[in-house]
């Protein structure tokens, strides 16, 4: 049985439906991240947002970035944040207020920011950029290890410094020694 070109009943292309679905999941999860009361659930919603964004990267023709997104964000950063949550959240703490007192000005500022970005994006002429292109992995590797070799090495030093610095910051101080 052949798959129809457009989605039945909707009349949109499969790519558009997939894009809308992933965008809705990503924005919905992001809203849950900033509004949920239970911080563990915030972390789980953040994982969902990262996963949907990885799907959008695949749609943009960047599968390597999508793989790095899953490995770095879901595999490392989200797990790190969840560990920190478990170490710092006192269970019986009276977390009555989720937001600070300036939540309403912050919401207004965020909405104004989103509207400004959307207006400026749609008002700008980006030229005739209508077709997507896919990234070849070998081209990326050649560029990374030739033209971008200095930033690559600087990032590795930065990661080393971050590891050493965070171990120093997080280690318990021996008051006797």
């Amino acid at each position, binding site marked *: 049985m052949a798959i129809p070109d457009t989605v039945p009943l909707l009349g949109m292309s499969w790519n558009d439906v997939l894009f809308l679905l992933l965008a809705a999941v990503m924005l919905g999860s992001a809203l849950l991240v900033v509004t949920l009361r239970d911080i563990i659930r915030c972390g789980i919603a953040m994982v969902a947002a990262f996963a949907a964004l990885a799907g959008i990267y695949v749609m943009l023709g960047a599968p390597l970035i999508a793989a790095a997104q899953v490995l770095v964000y879901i595999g490392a950063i989200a797990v790190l944040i969840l560990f920190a949550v478990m170490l710092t*959240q006192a269970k019986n703490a009276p977390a009555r207020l989720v937001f600070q007192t300036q939540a309403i000005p912050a919401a207004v*500022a965020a909405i104004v*920011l989103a509207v400004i970005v959307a207006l400026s994006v749609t008002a700008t002429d980006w030229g005739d950029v209508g077709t997507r292109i896919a990234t070849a992995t070998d081209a990326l590797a050649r560029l990374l290890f030739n033209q971008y070799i200095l930033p690559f090495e600087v990032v590795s030093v*930065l990661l080393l410094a971050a590891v050493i610095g*965070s171990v120093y910051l997080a280690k318990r101080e021996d008051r006797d020694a």
Partner: protein
Amino acid sequence: MSQSLDAYLVLAGILFAIGSFGFLARRNAISMLMSIELMLNAVNLAIVAFGAFVPELNVDASVIALMVMAVAAAEATVGLAIVMAIYRNRRTPLVDEYDAMRQ
């Protein structure tokens, strides 16, 4: 819609706005770090979208996105270590109770 750069950029802008709201409004320090991660992801989405639609930027955008991810990982590590260090002194993760420098 999935063929237009505008859709991806607007999506990135909305994600950035949500992250900025969380950073401004949440009381919990770790929630603020999560919001920063959302904003970094929004920027990465914009970079990858430009790379996918502008031929000259195609491969460079992927390299830059990878760099941003590495720096985000470093930022999360140091940020969480700072939160742990403050938590050990103040016994609370709520930033509006970190008022030692106000007095």
